[in-house]
């Protein structure tokens, strides 16, 4: 009796949850396809007279092309560099017993950098970039993102690498490989999936960052997509249609990336603490 009642209840709850999660996205999509006059004629769940005018306006009038270029460059460069310097560090922490409890300190230090909310550091970041003459530049943003991503890469990769049995690697060492060759020949291929998940997570969080980009940039020569979206919200007037279209452009690449890592999602969001 209990279980027969429980299943419909569960299904209803799940359908509701999915609807609540997805309907707001649908709403934004519908607004993004409507013309200004149609938007003001009242709400609708279906776009009557659907048009891509808002999207073309974004590129021709609101610098969306520049924002996308900036985001791509800054995200790509910072994730690549942080993988290159973070993965070896993670390997060192996962595989060696280091002097002076460096294993613990290294990990904790990395986590601290990652977990402190960026608002607490934007003023100092701003001062540092001003010193270096890197305000309103893609290079300046890349430098900051690289540092923050490195901390994430160290934690995630340390947790993935620690799962690879060290016997495999020791076998390679016995076969005469150096540590370096063993790392390249044995560990890297085995760590491939972890590496992929880590980089996708880093791409998502970096692309989504708003606060750091907002404070460190001021013109379309360095502003990223989230900052670009916020420029459509004027003090007096909001460009509803273009803003919705920009929201869709901001969301779609991230949703695609997220699907690729959904199996690792909890792990990424909890930095390896929950698998």
């Amino acid at each position, binding site marked *: 009796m209990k279980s027969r009642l429980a299943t419909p209840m569960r299904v209803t*709850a799940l359908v509701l949850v999915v609807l*609540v999660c997805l309907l707001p996205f649908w709403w934004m999509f519908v*607004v993004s396809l409507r013309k200004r006059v149609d938007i003001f004629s009242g709400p609708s769940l279906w776009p009557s007279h659907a048009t891509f005018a808002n999207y073309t306006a974004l590129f021709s009038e609101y610098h969306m092309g520049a924002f996308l270029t900036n985001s791509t460059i800054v995200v790509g460069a910072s994730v690549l560099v942080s993988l290159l310097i973070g993965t070896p560090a993670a390997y060192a922490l996962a595989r060696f017993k280091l002097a002076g409890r460096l294993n613990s300190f*290294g990990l904790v230090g990395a986590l601290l950098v990652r977990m*402190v909310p960026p*608002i607490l550091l934007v003023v*100092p970041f701003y001062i*540092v970039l001003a010193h270096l003459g890197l305000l309103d530049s893609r290079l300046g943003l890349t430098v900051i993102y690289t540092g923050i991503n490195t901390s994430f890469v160290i934690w995630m990769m340390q947790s993935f690498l620690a799962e690879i049995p060290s016997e495999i690697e020791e076998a390679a060492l016995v076969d005469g490989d150096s540590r370096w060759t063993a790392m390249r020949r044995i560990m890297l291929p085995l760590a491939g999936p972890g590496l992929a998940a880590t980089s996708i997570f880093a791409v998502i969080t970096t692309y989504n960052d708003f606060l750091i980009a*907002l404070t460190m940039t001021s013109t379309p020569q360095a502003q990223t997509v989230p900052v670009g979206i*916020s420029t459509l919200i004027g003090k007096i007037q909001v460009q509803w249609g273009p803003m919705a279209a920009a929201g869709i452009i901001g969301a779609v690449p991230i949703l695609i990336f997220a699907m690729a890592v959904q199996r690792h999602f909890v792990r990424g969001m909890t930095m390896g603490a929950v698998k």
Partner: protein
Amino acid sequence: MATKTAVAPTGHRARRWDRDRLLPYLLLIPAGLALALVSAYPIYEGVRASLTQYLYGRAHGSAGLKNYTDVMHDSTFWTAMGVTTKFVFICVVVETLLGLGLALLVVKEVKGIKFIRMSILAPMTVAPVVVGVIWRLIFSSETGFVDPVFTALGLGAPRMLTHEATAFWGLVMVDVWEWTPLLFLICLAGLQGLPQEPLEAATVDGAGPIRVFFNHTLPLLIPVLAVGIILRLIDAIGTFDQIFVLTRGGPGTATQLISIYAYNTAFNFTDYGHGAAMLIALLVFVFLLVLVAVSLMRRAARKSA
């Protein structure tokens, strides 16, 4: 085997041994420098700024501890701290309870979990700015459905974000929408990782589902749940993007979280000293929370490994 290891290392081997011993430290150096560049160095600069007097964005000599005493006597700062505390507390409690409840509801339902997981990932993976845009569209009287629905029901348009009494609750709603999925997924992962035997044994012994939950499931779930809660807590303290897009702290100071106030102080009023002092004070507090989080996480990670 024994004779092999007893042989004294040849010159070639000894060199390799040395190189191998140095290798991990060499591997750590670039990452260490990158981390220092975004932590130690900015914090040093931040502390220095907090001890400096700024006028119209320019440094005007040392201020001693004046910026800090100013913050302590700044009533807007304390209002913002109050709003932040209320916001963080309500959001985290609601999200935890909802997330846990939903996870308990579906833990046995394996079918369709992939699709469900995919849909509920959406709110928390897209940029918080996009979340802000979505809800700005929904709450707006021009593009949204909240006001028309209420009007149709004869309740009058609430225009939630424009009234001091309701704007705060609008933001809570948005945060709950965005982050309940995370706690749901964490709880689900925790529940699915629980050993089944003690739970089944308790049921066989005649314990009801509620007894089983409080006596057996919950205690086992605590380590994972604690990680989720404290991560969310730290993150919620820094909430900025959505609020910047939705209300910018208004109307009045109804939704002015400490993040918004600090941002305005530093970047709109270009009083970097006052802003830095505020943020350094908050940093010390969050730092303690993070240390708690780290120890909880390392314990949970060791357990699930």
